[in-house]
């Protein structure tokens, strides 16, 4: 746990979600452990933001207005600068097959809501074995 925390303490993480509450929960936890968090309420906003920053990881909801998580992922994967950035789906779509679909689409990890505050960091680190040191 403490090893995982130390890993992301200097990270810059983009959290994309149309639900303010969801953004706040995740942001509060990540910031508590020392990460720098950027917010966007949909895919389009996220893309705008990504023109100016290159985060260490992106946590994105899937169902969002204007541009959803799938389209966002597709746009990110088109950008050479962002190819190495892990994109994690953080979604309330927890039905069977959803995770497989997400992984197949190219999400680096698939976390379902409600998240566990206690294990969020550990889950992230476990699901992203290729995280840069």
């Amino acid at each position, binding site marked *: 746990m403490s090893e995982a925390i130390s890993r992301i303490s200097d990270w810059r993480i983009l959290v994309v979600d149309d639900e303010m509450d969801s953004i706040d929960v995740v942001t509060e936890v990540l910031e508590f452990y020392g990460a720098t968090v950027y917010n966007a309420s949909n895919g389009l906003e996220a893309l705008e933001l990504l023109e100016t920053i290159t985060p260490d990881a992106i946590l994105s909801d899937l169902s969002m207005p204007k541009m959803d998580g799938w389209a966002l992922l597709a746009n990110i994967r088109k950008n050479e600068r962002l190819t190495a950035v892990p994109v994690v789906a953080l979604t309330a*779509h927890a039905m069977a097959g959803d995770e497989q679909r997400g992984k197949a689409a190219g999400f680096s990890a698939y976390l379902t809501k*409600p998240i566990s505050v206690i294990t969020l960091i550990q889950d992230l680190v476990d699901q992203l074995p290729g995280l840069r040191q």
Partner: protein
Amino acid sequence: MINQASMQSSRFRSLTSLRTTLTAAFVVLSVLPVAAAVFFSSQRIQAQSQAQVNTLLDAAAQNKLDTIQNWIAGSQQTLRIALAHEDDVIEMTDFLSFHKDDEAARAAVTKNLTDLLAKQQDFVSLFVYDLNGEIVAATDPVDVGKFTKTAPYFEGSLVADSVHPPFYNVGSSDLNLIFTRQIIDEQGKLVGVMAGRANPNTLAAFMAQRAGLGETGETYLVSLESNYFLTPSRFEGFPQRRSYHSEGINRSLAGEDGLASYVGYRDVPVIGVYRWLPDLQVGLMVEEDQAEAYAALQQTQRANLIAAVVAALISVIAGSVLAIRIVRPIGALTRVTQALAAGDLTQRAAIQARNEIGDLGIAFNQMASQLGETLQSLEKSVQEARVATAMAREANRLKSEFLSTMSHELRTPLNAIIGFTEIMMAGMSGPMSEKQQHKMSRIHLNSKRLLDLINDLLDLAKIEAGRVDVLYEPFAPRDLAHGIRAQMESLAEQRGLGLVVRVDPQLPTVLLGDAGRIEQATKNLLSNAIKFTKEGSVELALHANGGDVWEIVVTDSGIGIPPHALEYIFDEFRQVDGTSQRAYGGSGLGLAITRNLSRIMGGDIRVTSTVGQGSTFTITLPVSLPEELEAVA
């Protein structure tokens, strides 16, 4: 296409055979009686005809016989009359006894003989000879002085008055037929014989009378002497003085009387009547060629045969026509049936006649109509079913979509509730008092319970929607059991219960199945068992059941389930009663989910329980072995 072709060929085969059968039946039925009638009438006609011929020939023979016998009697009478007067007898006996050399006496006797000859037609000459056989007087002067001692009739003429068997003179065709009359003197002593030579044409004239005998009928006399003919043959090229043989001739000369069919002397089949004439020692033959005798019969037979053939032909034609008339509507019906089978439901059989086949056609049309209606209603049903299926599919899609949305929409606020609660509890937002801490944990527990409920509900809905795919992957039951223990141990410990896990050594080390689902079902049973047990222990046992199934048995020492409740504890939202629900919490969906999971994996679940002592839940699952293991086993 193949089906149709074979149907067509079989159709032709059966029609041909039906027509042939009917025709053959007609022919047999009509020709047999005709043939029998012709046969029996022929038999009868033949018998009648033969009898007729026989009667005719027999009558002819009898007639000839009578004629000859009358003639013989007449001729003998003529000779008797010649010596009827006493004076003439005396004159004759004197002449023979004393004056044989007296020319005057000879002249007187000769004159008597000549007078006598003139008075009758039976004899062509008369002569008298003495006991030495010397002719002493004769109507023909050249006869006088000849000796008759070597003549065939001489010996006989000394014995009695007689007619003698005819004979030919040596080396000539002159036929001799001699009648003799003894000359006896006053002392009763035989002194000589008077003889008359009969006209040799008389017999021929008799035989030439062939009235009623047709073109080939003839009568003739045959001599015992060398089988010579005594009367001429009716036919050219058959001289009298030749030996003739045939069955009839031989029999008559053997002294037999009778009638027979045989090959005649001309080498032609004849029917003949033969008689033996003992007076003349000759055979009398009456013969007619069979060809002529039976000509009428043969004509009748031919006429009969023609009639029979004509009748047979007519019946064959009539039979064929009838057969065609029977078969054609059937053929038409067959074609309509084929059209119907090919899908043309508008086809109807033409009703040609109001008979059984017509009735068949009517029944067929009714059937076709009903078939049409049935097909229409069937199509309607299919259409309705299609719509219903589409609607059901749509409803199912909507249901899935609804479930997905529900899940999503319920999780989103729960995410915030649980998230913020955990942030608070983790002290990320600063320290809290013990009271606050306690209330936070209450919020957290209830949020978790709500989440479990949502998860269970979705699980159940997914299973019922048939949206659960069961995996068949190798897994180790022993590892599974220990994994489950690791997860459930802490819960049991919290309740102060022991958790015992047993794995039957007989159980295969590797099985095929959906380990995730099995784990889910087992954990449901275990958490129930722990929930309803206050003290004692809970046991999880995996049994190899010897054969096709294996068992997961969860036993507790809990409150037990009353018998009436055993029926519905697997139903959704049912616990034993309302009190239980409140006392033990839970969604009430665990057992329903467990049973559904067991069933979609091809197994089932059962329970036995005693109130106050505990319950035993048993999941049975089919044994499915990985192929390589199966091969070894």
